[in-house]
């Protein structure tokens, strides 16, 4: 069960010895990421799980091209990343919807930035609104929607850019548990049917297990890859709630929990 399979499938995202240092308040070098090396394959869903404060958001910032690494490289579709590209989109923890725009305008934001003509933009946003059953909210404002609906809009905004790879930075952590389960399913289904590659960062071990093909467990600061675990129970279960009842679920859970360098209470 604990394997680090090297796939014959093409690696869409490749991290090679990524390291990142920050300078603290006294300008001392603080290594946040020591060595990150792993691949993500086309159409895969990979979760990154680590203890609190291990620089997971920094990782995503580096992969997306927003932040340059101190050393090492990220390759996407065989091209080295040196800035944001169109093949990769980033869904953040907060929905970051613009309150002064309608739902439709929020979804079309990325397309607007790329100067896509209005009718084409409308086509895309209408299609996604229909797919997620939110067509009636096209002209509403974000403040009229619940947290779960807002995250759906953020997801639509991300998908509208038609990226190959989508990075997800704990996008469900601010939602209540039931909405979270619903969205986990929706994301999985959407990614599957659209053939997207997903990289999810989460604190929720259960979420990582039920959503991923593989789980990358990272160590505490300075972060490095501890283990990569083949999971994949989402592939033969119809929903995340079924996956949570899968016999292998608890085994994976115990394994990952034991792996994490959590600070324990001293007896």
């Amino acid at each position, binding site marked *: 069960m604990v394997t680090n399979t090297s796939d014959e499938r093409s690696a869409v995202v490749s991290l090679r010895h990524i390291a990142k240092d920050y300078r603290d308040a006294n300008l001392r070098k603080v290594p946040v990421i020591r060595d990150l090396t792993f691949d993500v394959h086309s159409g895969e869903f990979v979760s990154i799980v680590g203890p609190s404060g291990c620089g997971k958001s920094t990782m995503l*910032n580096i992969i997306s*091209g*927003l932040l340059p690494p101190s050393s090492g490289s990220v390759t996407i579709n065989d091209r080295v990343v040196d800035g*944001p590209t169109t093949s990769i989109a*980033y869904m*953040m*923890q907060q929905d*970051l919807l*613009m309150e002064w725009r309608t739902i439709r305008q929020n979804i079309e934001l990325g397309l607007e*930035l790329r100067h896509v003509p209005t009718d084409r933009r409308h086509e895309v946003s209408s299609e996604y609104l229909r797919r997620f059953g939110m067509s009636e909210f096209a002209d509403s404002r974000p403040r009229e929607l619940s947290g779960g609906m807002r995250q759906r809009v953020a997801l639509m905004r991300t998908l509208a850019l038609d990226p190959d790879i989508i990075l997800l930075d704990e996008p469900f952590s601010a939602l209540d548990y039931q909405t979270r389960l619903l969205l986990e399913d929706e994301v999985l289904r959407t990614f599957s049917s659209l053939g997207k590659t997903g990289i999810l960062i989460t604190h929720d071990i259960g979420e990582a297990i039920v959503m991923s093909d593989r789980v990358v467990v990272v160590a505490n600061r300075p972060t490095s890859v501890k283990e990569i675990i083949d999971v994949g129970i989402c592939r033969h279960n119809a929903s995340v709630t079924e996956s949570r009842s899968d016999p292998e679920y608890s085994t994976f859970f115990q394994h990952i929990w034991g792996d994490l360098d959590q600070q324990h209470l001293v007896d």
Partner: protein
Amino acid sequence: MTASIETVPSTSSRPAASSGPMSEELERRALLRSRFISRHLVPNVIRVLLIVLLIGLWQIGTNAKVLDSFTLGSPQGIWKSFAMSVADGSIVTDCLSTLSSTVVGFVIGSALGVLSGLALWFVPKVMRLIDPIVVTLNGLPKIALGPLIIIWFGSGKVSKIILAAFATFIIALLNSCEGSAKVNEESVSLVRSMGASKWQLFAKVIVPSSMPWIISAFRVNVGLALLAVIGGEFISADAGLGRKAAVAGNLYDLNGIWVSVLLILVLAALLNVVVSWVARRIEKIV
């Protein structure tokens, strides 16, 4: 009119219900009425009565020689003074003069301040450089520059407009800078991750996000602009409510002073209502 439901004649073949849409509507209307009375009618009536009482006592005290109308003025005297100003048309001239100076100064100062503040977002180094200077200047009551501005620009409306504009400019500048700096960094990251250029980031994120700060500057500035204008008119002016008050003061015409004060009060209230209305309209969009 009783609230007995059973006596409502039913015009349809359905039997009269003991609770139905008709009776609920009546109940709702009754509640609305009583709420209006208790929350709006009664308090306002009491407020008006209190003011009338105050004015009445003032006048009675004057008539009874308990209050000295020379030093305090009197409601009757105020009314006479007001009527005279209306008769000779000076009311209109003075009010319009102060109002127009305030509005023009406010608009010019706000426009320049907001544009400069937002433009500084593009050059953070410059912003950091001049920030302490601007903050220090803000501490200066702009009216202190009154005599200077009036010497340079004369005692006409231009000097008042400049004073109002300067008072408004500093705060509009500071608030726009703060608004542009306080934009959610995650929003900036998100838009950058979508490949936005600096201009796109500015137009689509920074400007709309800064609006709450800019609006709050408006609310403060309209009062400061009026203050600057009145202060300038105190020093030296050809017309205006401040000048009217100063002239009355020099003549020890208490009633004249009161008329000016009350008119300035009305003006201030009017300006605040307009700015609040504009602010709410913009806040609805943002």
